[in-house]
């Protein structure tokens, strides 16, 4: 599903590479934590997968796409098959909950009757069935994150990227979000989650990929966050 081959990324403003010769492979249906301190390259890793950045060296593959070499006009096709969730939710503030979720379907040109059917189903799945007409600012952080997850999942993406999805949330609400991510993973969607959250990583016992200063330093198939951190 994901394959990085000797990937390096150096930003123009920095002398040290954000990612330094990273090679890693993630299979279809896996649930993987991407951990590491701030500045270790986690965000760069995710941005490369979404083609928000292009690698300086090496190749990045998502499904059958060579992401770094993808023609610009084909980037939307990639993003339509890759869902993403962020620490700051990134909802469209002038649209209702239902419209936010519907937007992901409109963009790919799904017919209106499909949208009317699918949106309530997904909102129901994330537990927001009664709040479809609310505006994002009327919701709690946990609810907003669930809207974002509904939006990311509504297309049944091949891959779901989550960048610190629990970073702004209380522990018990974080747990809800993790349960939801697991549910999404069980439908066959590959999940890659970048996080700082020790307890979540430790309790889930899933594959852990650790970055430090841009280098891959650990890849455990059933890992914990790490000793002494």
């Amino acid at each position: 599903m994901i394959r990085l081959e000797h990937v390096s990324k150096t930003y123009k403003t920095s002398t040290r590479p954000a990612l330094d010769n990273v090679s890693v492979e993630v299979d279809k249906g896996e649930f993987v934590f991407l951990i590491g301190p701030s500045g270790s390259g986690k965000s760069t890793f995710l941005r490369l997968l979404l083609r928000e950045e292009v690698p300086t060296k090496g190749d990045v593959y998502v499904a059958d796409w060579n992401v770094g070499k993808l023609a610009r006009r084909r980037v939307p096709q990639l993003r339509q098959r890759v869902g993403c969730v962020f620490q700051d939710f990134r909802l469209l503030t002038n649209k209702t909950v239902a419209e936010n979720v519907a937007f992901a379907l409109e963009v790919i040109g799904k017919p209106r009757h499909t949208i009317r059917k699918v949106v309530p189903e997904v909102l129901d799945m994330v537990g927001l069935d009664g709040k479809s007409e609310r505006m994002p600012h009327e919701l709690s952080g946990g609810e907003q994150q669930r809207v974002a997850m509904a939006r990311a999942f509504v297309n049944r993406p091949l891959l779901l990227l989550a960048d610190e999805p629990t970073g702004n949330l209380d522990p018990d609400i974080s747990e809800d979000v993790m349960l939801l991510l697991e549910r999404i993973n069980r439908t066959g969607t590959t999940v890659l989650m970048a996080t700082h959250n020790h307890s979540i990583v430790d309790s889930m016992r899933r594959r852990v990929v650790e970055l430090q200063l841009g280098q891959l330093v650990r890849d455990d198939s059933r890992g914990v966050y790490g000793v002494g951190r």
Partner: protein
Amino acid sequence: MRASFVFSEVVTGLRRNVTMTVAMILTTAISLGLLGGGLLVITTIDQMKQLYYDRVEVAVFLTEDISANDPRCTGNTCADLRAELEAASGVESVVYESREEAFQRFQQIFEAQPELRELARPEALPASFRVQLTNPERFEVIAQEFSGRPGVDRIADQGAYLEELFQTLTGLRNATFAVALVQALAALLLISNAIQVSAFTRRTEVGIMRLVGASRWYTQLPFLIEAIVAGVVGGLLAVAGLVTAKVAFIDRVLAGVFEAGIVPRIGYADIAFVSPILLLVGAGIATVTGYVTLRLYVRT
């Protein structure tokens, strides 16, 4: 869904930068209004040319000798001249006007100015041949052939006066176009600027849309349509301006000239003919400017 999405984005965009939108529309309107004015001057010139060149005559003024002594053009010199003029190629008709007839015509023309009529004496006016040409441009040939001939004093072409008039009008048209061009440049820069501001204020939203997989076209279409709406509204205002100018200004100030048939009236039909051109040019400029701006300056 798509149409409603684009529509709501356009409305939001135009409302968010009201002052910019107004500036953009007004400059476009002024530019297009001037362009329209220039186009109307062109149609007027064309109509005037048709109107006048049909009536234009070449006047072959005769010498004092003939004017005084041959009121019926029966003498050899005069009759020969007439025959030759009639035979010349490109001549439609030749009418002899004696000194007495010229004087009567003068009295008629200056009916309103008795002082001038008092001053005029028949002896001051020469007899002449009024020559109608089938093609006004043949004047040079006639002038060359007949000037200096016995009995001919000088040859005057009314067309030359018209030419001067038309040159003035053409100059007026060119000046209008020049100002229109400068205004168009200002409108262009404003449109480009407005789009950039629009795109900048909505960059977060657009970023999110792009992350969900919206194509560049999908996110940028609203910006482009904003510009086109401004262009078309500017065009409509320009048309309204032309109609207002006609009713409130041209029809009043030039009423006498129109009545006398000296200048053909600028009708609603003329404005109706120019209007679609203005709308198309407005929309066209906005589209091209918008497209180029989005390609060059708006990356997300």
